[in-house]
């Protein structure tokens, strides 16, 4: 904070107002000194690891004899041809969970922004508060809720909805646990607050007079929503969907705890290749493919939704 010129000592004060002195050379370096430690941390522990991983993905060798960079790009091809079902499943599950988050989250965000009145803070707290219980504990609680003899299975059964979901391939037989439905439910639950909060911030910024104006022009509530509210909440929709889709596609906790071994997502594969199989080149290639796929999808999505200034 030395760029700002030092004010002269009180007794030496000549004529006010004091003209600001030109920043001295030391002052011009201030931003760089402020940035240095933090950026160094990010370069060494975020950017550099990415480079290491890139080099690992084109290495060959074995754990015993050591790895060498041989520019063996075939690892990428092998990884993709072996694990494309898991990639596809990750994108599919994350996509469905994101859409569900949007559908479930929008009314709640709308409620907090426009309808809650003096309850607004309380509802906001209730949205954030579940965060304080470790997300693993809460995910395990879904095992109880979705259990075979539990209330959800009972309700779905008595409504004959389980036949529908198993016809859709979402469940198997008389159970929900260890099926795709459970994994998608867990993903939706875990990332829902990341959808609600950005939606709420962008809805809250909307000028209430626009709604009145739409009403004055004889727009029905549905039309007002379709033509005024929803378009104005687009920044929230875009950042909310990104905040849900990106972490959901890399997640392996929900698939592990709520799914079955045949429902693995790409995160599970990366985790087991790295920590159990110890096949580092394949694991590195997999995580690079995941990163590239996400980058491409996100860029296309942002282009399409026309809010490039967001990122």
């Amino acid at each position, binding site marked *: *904070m*030395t760029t*700002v010129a*030092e*004010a002269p000592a*009180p007794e030496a*004060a000549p004529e006010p*107002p004091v003209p600001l002195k030109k920043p001295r050379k030391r002052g011009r370096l*201030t*931003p760089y000194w*402020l*940035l240095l*430690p*933090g*950026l160094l*941390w*990010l370069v060494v*522990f*975020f950017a550099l*690891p990415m480079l*290491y*991983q890139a080099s690992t993905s084109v290495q060959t060798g074995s754990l015993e004899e050591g790895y060498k960079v041989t520019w063996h790009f075939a690892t990428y091809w092998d990884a993709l041809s072996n694990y494309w079902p898991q990639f596809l499943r990750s994108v599919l599950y994350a996509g469905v969970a994101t859409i569900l988050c949007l559908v479930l989250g929008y*009314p*709640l965000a*709308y*409620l907090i922004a426009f*309808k809650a009145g003096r309850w607004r803070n309380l509802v906001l707290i*209730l949205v954030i*508060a579940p*965060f*304080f*219980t*470790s997300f*693993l*504990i*809460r995910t*395990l*609680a*879904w095992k*109880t809720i979705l259990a075979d*003899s539990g209330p959800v299975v009972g309700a779905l059964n008595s409504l004959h909805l389980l036949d529908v979901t198993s016809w859709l391939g979402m469940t198997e037989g008389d159970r929900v646990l260890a099926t795709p439905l459970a994994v998608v439910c867990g993903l939706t*639950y875990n990332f*829902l607050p990341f959808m*609600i909060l950005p939606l709420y911030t962008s809805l809250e910024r909307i000028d209430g007079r626009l709604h009145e104006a739409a009403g004055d022009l004889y727009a029905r509530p549905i039309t007002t929503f379709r033509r005024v509210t929803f378009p104005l909440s687009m920044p929230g929709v875009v950042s909310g969907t990104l905040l849900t889709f*990106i*972490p959901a596609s*890399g*997640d*392996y*906790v929900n698939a592990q*705890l709520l799914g079955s071994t045949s429902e693995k997502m790409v*995160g599970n594969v*990366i985790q087991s290749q*790295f920590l159990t199989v110890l096949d580092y080149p394949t*694991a*590195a290639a997999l*995580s690079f493919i*995941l*990163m590239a796929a996400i980058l491409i999808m996100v860029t296309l999505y942002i282009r399409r939704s026309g809010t490039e200034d967001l*990122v």
Partner: protein
Amino acid sequence: MRWLRKRLVVIAGLLTLAFLILPNIVVMVFSFNKPKGRFNYAWQEFSTHAWEDPCGVADLCGSLSLSLQIAVWATIGATALGTAIAFALARYRFRARGAVNSLIFLPMAMPEVVMAASLLTLFLNMGAQLGFWTILIAHIMFCLSFVVTAVKARVMSMDPRLEQAAQDLYAGPVQTFVRVTLPIAAPGIAAGALLAFALSFDDFIITNFNAGSTVTFPMYVWGSAQRGTPVQINVIGTAMFAIAVLLVLAGMVVTNRRKKQHS
């Protein structure tokens, strides 16, 4: 029918809220369970034994205190580094500002598993001993961007004339910073620090890759999902939830009182 249609949004919103809170209620109820087997997924009978002896399970409270230690240090580290970056970005125009902004943004837009895996390759290549220090390094790394974002938002919305006024009143740069700038930026710094603490305390994916044989609380819970979940986990989950809600409510009461005093 008309009544229902008018309240459709409110009902849908409240249903979502119930969906969000349901697991917390289940955790709370099952903290009073007395399970028969190793797993605490089905209701057996009411008991308060877990509440009477929350540390009664081996390693549980050890992992909890380790997680708290890491979260405290990660919060201090990330808040110090992140606040400095946020001030530089919000206050100064310099070259490479765009590049710095992207470097801050990228860790937040990257799936955790990718960051976790790449950090592990670095540590393996360096031959680093996995444990407390590698966890701490990783946590500071991924909390940093969130602190920068929180502090930057606050500093950007600050009126620069306040600092000019302080200088017109002959405050030196240090005095201006300590008595004007810092108090105004404090809520942003506090928000960033709280976020860092919560993120670090609850992180599983990145810790799972870089912890070696060290066990943090989320890793203990993860392991217990395979070995058998003690009821004490539900007790700790419930206690965390209750403490957080009480703290937030207390904060609301205090700010309400201050507002009343001012008006």
